[in-house]
């Protein structure tokens, strides 16, 4: 592809990220956004979907990876392909948005070129019209562009668009333990995407959402209006009123600084990390009848205790998803422009668990992540105010320095205080590395 010249040389990018602050351009500059799409989102492992969305051969699901429209499709051999949703002939989007079944091949609605579920060009009507035209040497002959690498990890489908780069396990390392825990919480040992996805448009940069997932100094402030009001109204209920699930879910958002500080943050290499090392907002939910029994039957007492004892809050998988094991949700922060992000919030069924767990998951998603959520209104407002405020040219730096110490990030799986901004800095160290490593090599 043709690379346009950029003023963002490696040195210029490096100057944007300091130990304890970042330049506002990383959130506001459209050219940096474009570089994120062509470098960061091609060289990292990005979430695509879940294998339960495509159980049968030919099943597909369309989504995007960075700026690339992709289709995830189940092949006849049982594997999963991640193909760029663009006909190799005229560039037409091949597969309609959403999900369904393609049959044995993908057929373009324009000129009926057909492609296998592996992306290979299968057939062209009147093919002899290309004889002797040099067709064999064209890009069209290569079929559909496809992800450089695809990995299905315990049902979760990730891809790396670039043909070369870091391997899946090297990239995620020990951070996969959060996905493991979510899957292990299913008595049958597997998850299903179900319930329907919430889609919410945000007028801010995608990294603001990514940072907020481990920001433990904002809930008791930003969510005073929503969670604080819930706690007050709950307090007015007559003595003995059973505590509703909604109150259990809202109330911890106005936990104290001490509570959030004590829960801790664990930092992994390549920008991954999680809050809720030793405690979390999900730790005190009521037991679900029948669930414990199903877990013990599947795993035994000891292993069940270990699985359910892990109550991690938010796990950020760099660059753009957040996973909550104990409540079975996943959020995708899809970058659309420097100041525009689509937030998708997914829910999972723990196969073999009572329906009440899925009900709890759907309630959490609705109460916290929907466009009607009062908690979400609190967050969106501050993101958008930040996006607007960063337009100011008289201040250039955003501070991420809380509890910074020299040598941070040198050890793997370091655990720090919950109110540290260390995970945000961890994300920016990874950001800088994946943004500047491919200066000449962007393919």
């Amino acid at each position, binding site marked *: 592809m043709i690379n346009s010249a950029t003023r963002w040389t490696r040195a210029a990018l490096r100057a944007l990220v300091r130990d304890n602050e970042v330049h506002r351009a990383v959130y506001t500059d459209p050219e940096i956004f474009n570089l994120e799409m062509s470098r960061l989102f091609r060289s990292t492992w990005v979430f695509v979907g879940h294998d339960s969305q495509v159980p049968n051969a030919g099943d597909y699901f369309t989504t995007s990876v960075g700026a690339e429209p992709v289709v995830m499709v189940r092949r006849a051999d049982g594997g999963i392909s991640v193909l760029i949703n663009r006909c190799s002939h005229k560039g037409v989007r091949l597969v309609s948005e959403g999900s369904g079944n393609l049959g044995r091949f993908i057929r373009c609605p324009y000129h009926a070129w057909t492609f296998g579920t592996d992306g290979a060009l299968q057939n062209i009507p009147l093919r002899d019209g290309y004889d002797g035209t040099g067709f064999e040497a064209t890009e069209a002959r290569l079929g559909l562009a496809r992800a450089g690498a695809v990995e299905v990890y315990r049902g979760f489908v990730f891809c790396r668009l670039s043909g070369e780069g870091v391997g899946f396990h090297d990239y995620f390392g020990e951070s996969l333990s959060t996905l493991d825990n979510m899957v292990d919480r299913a008595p049958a040992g597997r998850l299903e995407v179900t319930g*329907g996805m919430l889609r919410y448009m945000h007028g801010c940069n995608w990294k603001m959402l990514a940072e907020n997932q481990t920001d433990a100094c904002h809930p008791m402030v930003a969510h005073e*209006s929503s969670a604080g009001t819930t706690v007050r109204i709950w307090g007015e*209920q007559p003595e003995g009123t059973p505590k509703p699930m909604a109150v259990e879910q*809202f109330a911890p958002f106005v936990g104290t600084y001490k509570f959030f500080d004590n829960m801790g943050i664990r930092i992994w290499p390549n920008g991954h990390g999680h809050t809720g090392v030793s405690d979390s907002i999900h730790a005190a939910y009521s037991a679900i009848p029948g669930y414990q029994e199903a877990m013990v039957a599947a795993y035994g007492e000891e292993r069940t205790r270990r699985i359910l004892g892990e109550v991690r809050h938010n796990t950020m998988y760099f660059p753009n998803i957040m996973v909550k094991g104990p409540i079975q949700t996943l959020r995708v922060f899809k970058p659309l422009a420097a100041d525009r992000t689509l937030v998708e919030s997914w829910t999972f069924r723990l196969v073999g668990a009572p329906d009440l767990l*899925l009900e709890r998951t759907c*309630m959490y998603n609705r109460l916290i992540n929907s466009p009607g959520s*009062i908690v979400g209104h609190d967050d969106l407002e501050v993101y958008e105010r930040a996006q607007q405020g960063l337009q100011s040219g008289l201040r250039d730096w955003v501070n991420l320095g809380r509890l910074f110490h020299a040598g941070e990030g040198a050890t793997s799986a370091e655990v720090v205080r919950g109110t540290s901004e260390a995970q945000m800095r961890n994300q920016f160290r990874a950001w800088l590395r994946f943004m500047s490593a491919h200066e000449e090599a962007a393919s």
Partner: protein
Amino acid sequence: MSEQVVPPDLERQLQAVVVREARLLDEQRLDEWDRLFADDGVYWLPASSSAQDPRLEASHLYDDRMLRRVHIERLRSAHAHSQQPAGRCHHLLQTPEVIEADLAGGIFGLRTAFLYTELRAGRTVTLPGVAHHRLRRAASGFLIVLKRVDLLHAGEALPAVEFYI
């Protein structure tokens, strides 16, 4: 529920509930609005027009009395920064149509097409849809058992919607 012909007087009474409900929202008389609901009444904004089960399917809102109370009080909170400056909303309704009637049981269903507009800090959101009211006869008139709002854009990426549609 059986479909029966509804006497014109009754039809007008039922329609008046729906029209008043929208007016109370637009005038931000939210305590009065909430009292239109039966004690077990629910406000539902599904994330898909085909949604059947609010427990196990995605919704934007599924609010019982306590959650409506929280939502209303939150809008009035000094800490609700997304309401500074305060927003307003506007419902443009088509004539509510009685589509279900159980005269003996005192249960009625109405369908009302609408165009909802929300204005907040200079930004306008306009959403078309259909509201389904299930009303129950009570000593004081009719109470809302369920208000289900099916947005045309229910499954699309939505902007923030801060008021009840």
